[in-house]
């Protein structure tokens, strides 16, 4: 039954989700490692990602996804 349950999150808890995964944001709102704030989190295309652009995380090497149609299209193709 529960195998098909999806978990989503509201825009208002983005920071909380990042904290759970050991990330935070720097003074420019860019997502960084909480224990090493000089290290930026990158998307699979090696782009830095701001809190506003953050759409979610995919399991694997913790793939961070940007909130735009091209990134989500790639994700839907399993890329």
């Amino acid at each position, binding site marked *: 039954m*529960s195998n098909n349950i999806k978990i*989503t999150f*509201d825009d*208002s*808890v983005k920071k*909380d989700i990042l904290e759970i995964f050991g990330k935070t944001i720097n003074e420019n709102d860019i997502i960084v490692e909480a224990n090493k704030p000089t290290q930026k989190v990158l998307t699979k295309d090696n782009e830095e990602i701001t809190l506003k652009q953050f759409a979610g995380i995919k399991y694997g090497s913790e793939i961070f996804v940007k909130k735009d149609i091209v990134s*989500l*299209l790639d994700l*839907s193709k399993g890329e």
Partner: protein
Amino acid sequence: MGINKILDFLKSKLNIPLSLIAINVININSHNHDPKDEENKTFKYNEKEGSLEIFIKEFPLNVREEFDKELKANWKDIDLLLEKTSYNLFEKLCQYQKESKIDDEVILSAFKEIKIPEIDLKILESALFIRRLAFDYGENIESWKNDLQNRFGERGKNIINLCSAGYFEGFLIPLYEASHDLFSKMYEDVISKSMLAVFVHSIMSQDKITQDIKSKLEISKKYGIKFIYIHGIGKTNITRIKNCIDSNEAFFNFFDKQIHEESNIIIVGLTLRY
């Protein structure tokens, strides 16, 4: 399964009735601004949608800490954690991948073979999806268009406009088939300057419309192209285009005009007489 564990955890800690079985989505939210009662402040269940909304900022501190640990511990089974609106789009995109979309695939593979820049292919693929959302499902696509423009600037906007109006299959593929050389010369001006068409939008003045026509025709003339199309969607833009033609008679007299108007769409074809 891990997600079952999370659901069991929530049921045990938040007074969620054990009878709730039809849950498709758990959405993590912050505060419950409209609780039914104080006891059920931490969650809201929507039976019709099969959705369980949990308000983590209403959780007792110890429950919140445990929840964070559960989420992290079951991460492998969760697999994908997306913000709600992104998830809705992601679902549509997954559906799009499964659908038969031969027309879109033919266009995309043609441009792959032509070897247009990789970034243009990515934008084109998204533009084809957006076009399908608009034409087949009647969805409002403005936010997705803005999305592409925000990320890819003028190039993103031009590709989506040209794609929506059918220029990729209607003009660029035939152009490539007729002359690889001319295609190579023209492609960049078509994509970066949208030289073949003026797409009228809600904040465009009449002066801006005629100015755009003039500047784009100047580019087109380099290639011996003497036509341009004006596109408008919606009553306001249709009226704006018609008013522009009426009030700039001297300018538009240089062109042969063909006006196609159907429901809420207008396309004006202009061909230079000289």
